[in-house]
């Protein structure tokens, strides 16, 4: 992977006067879905604003696909940013908002009109396009921002709390759209507090708290790095008590909890490799009929809890 395909932060710090925004952040993000996770005020929006030039770094360098916001003509052809600022220029309809922004790309009216239609249809807002944004619901305002940010077919899409205000159906549609865009090879940088849903489409996480980068990388890799928190595994089987008692013969198995339906057990282990080896042995013996095995805390939510925990609610 060459640097021209990546979003790169090189030792970036941002101070708002004496207040720390982010401190010495270094990242190199490949295409795919990256979720920014951290409590309120942890620096997620600052990272996004730095990436798009809305704020300037106090030190360090940032490049997006080898471009910088200093050359906006090139940069914003490749980047779309759906901010969480819930305000719009006065008096505009949804159509004006998307269409005008496309005209600023240097497009002719016909092309801008075609792309505006496409974006509005993608977010399901075509019918309301000619109504004033001031009369939109919160969910519709979220959708129109999303439409504006994807209308010009950017390679990098930065989404700050893109699921806020959306009903479950619209959330599912948005996530499907993000998945589709990711499959097309785009970069998607998402911050969201709806971790369970974003988790399903995330390729990697960036955990940040108090302006400091806590961890980043593939979710499973980050989880396995958290060695002080035993891994939790859910095993669906017909004799969970027997399985739990066999597992407890090993030192690394530190906790067992029966599933509420009685057909499974949650086990915590400090040595996941040894754990699976023993589990294979038990399955071979045929004493327990094992139906399914799945990590139970190998997701963004669990990683958030382990690494950031009670410092604040996820946002």
């Amino acid at each position, binding site marked *: 992977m060459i640097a021209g395909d990546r979003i790169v932060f090189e030792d970036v710090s941002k101070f*708002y006067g004496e207040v720390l925004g982010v401190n010495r952040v270094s990242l190199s993000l490949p295409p795919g879905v990256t979720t920014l996770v951290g409590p309120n005020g942890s620096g997620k929006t600052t990272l996004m*604003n730095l990436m*798009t*030039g*809305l*704020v*300037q770094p106090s030190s360090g360098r940032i490049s997006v696909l080898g471009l910088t916001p200093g050359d*906006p*003509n*090139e*940069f*914003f*052809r490749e980047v779309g*940013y759906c*901010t969480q*600022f819930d*305000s*719009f*220029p*006065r*008096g*505009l309809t949804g159509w004006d908002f998307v269409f*005008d*922004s496309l*005209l*600023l*790309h*240097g497009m002719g009216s016909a092309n801008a009109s075609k792309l505006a239609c496409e974006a509005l249809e993608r977010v399901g807002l075509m019918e309301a396009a000619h109504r004033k944004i001031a009369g939109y619901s919160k969910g519709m305002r979220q959708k129109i921002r999303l439409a*504006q940010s994807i209308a010009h077919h950017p390679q990098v899409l930065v989404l700050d709390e893109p699921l806020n205000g959306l009903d479950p159906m619209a959330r599912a549609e948005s996530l499907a759209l993000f998945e589709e865009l990711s499959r097309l090879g785009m970069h998607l940088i998402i911050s969201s507090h709806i971790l369970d849903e974003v988790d399903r489409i995330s390729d990697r996480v960036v955990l940040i708290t108090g302006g400091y980068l806590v961890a980043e990388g593939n979710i499973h890799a980050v989880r396995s790095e958290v060695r002080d928190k035993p891994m939790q595994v859910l095993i669906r089987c017909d004799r969970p008590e027997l399985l739990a008692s066999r597992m407890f013969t090993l030192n690394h198995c530190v906790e067992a909890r029966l599933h509420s339906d009685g057909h499974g057990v949650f086990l915590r282990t400090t040595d996941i490799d040894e754990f699976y080896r023993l589990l294979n042995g038990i399955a071979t013996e045929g004493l327990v009929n094992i139906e399914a095995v799945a990590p139970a805390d190998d997701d963004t939510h669990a990683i958030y809890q382990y690494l950031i925990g009670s410092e604040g609610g996820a946002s």
Partner: protein
Amino acid sequence: METLRKQPWSLWWMQARCIARIEVRRNLLTWKAAWIYFLAFVPTAIIAIHALFDRSHHALTDDTNVLAGIVQFYYIRLGIFFGCLGIFSRLIRGEMIERSLHFYLLAPVRREVLLLAKFAAGVFGAVLLFGSAIVVDFAFMYASFGADGQDYMFNGPGLAQLEAYLAVVVLGCVGYGAVFLLLSMMFRNPMPAAMLVLGWEAINPVMPSLLQKISVASYLKHLMPITVPGEGLFALLTVQTDPVRGWVAATGLLLLAAVVLAYSCIRIRTIEIRYTTE
């Protein structure tokens, strides 16, 4: 020179036109601009009432002096001053307060192009309002004199005076617009700074001639076709400067505006979106 030639001028021009069109639509055709319409057309209403209801005999030269006084004391020192303050301080600071500036900063438009396009839209709006107000003032004022008024306008010095006043309006809007656009980028509340500018413009005539060059009103003074000496309270609004030729004054004012705009372009390159501090 080669570097300049290689710049995407046609793209910038197209973007600037697009921004200017959006800005004019947004800022001129809105109820929030009603007070600026009021500022522009208050004298018009008074002149109309005078023309329609005050049938007592007036000398045409007296009313010509009254009109010159209105332009000199009201439009230049108050109407255009505060109108431009309202229009131009909205362009950047207003969008910061309404939390909508980031949409422009996220567009593929150089910030300098954005600033200059917004400035052009502001000048267009201000000139349209105050220019048309002065044209209507002339129409009401001289229409009430019937054939004499018509003769003064089309065979006398009337049209030349109107052209000179319109030039003053254009240059006034350019000068004050540039100053207030910069002030709105430098201060969260540009009003105190604008009051300082108003004070500076008032005391400028007693300043050394070098300092007089940093004043919009002092340049405009030289472009007035008729100068009305101020008396009493009006003396505070009267600018007395060394006589300068019209083209020198116009060039000086445009240079002053260009310097201010150049500095604004430098400032906008580092402007940040920090709405929480607005």
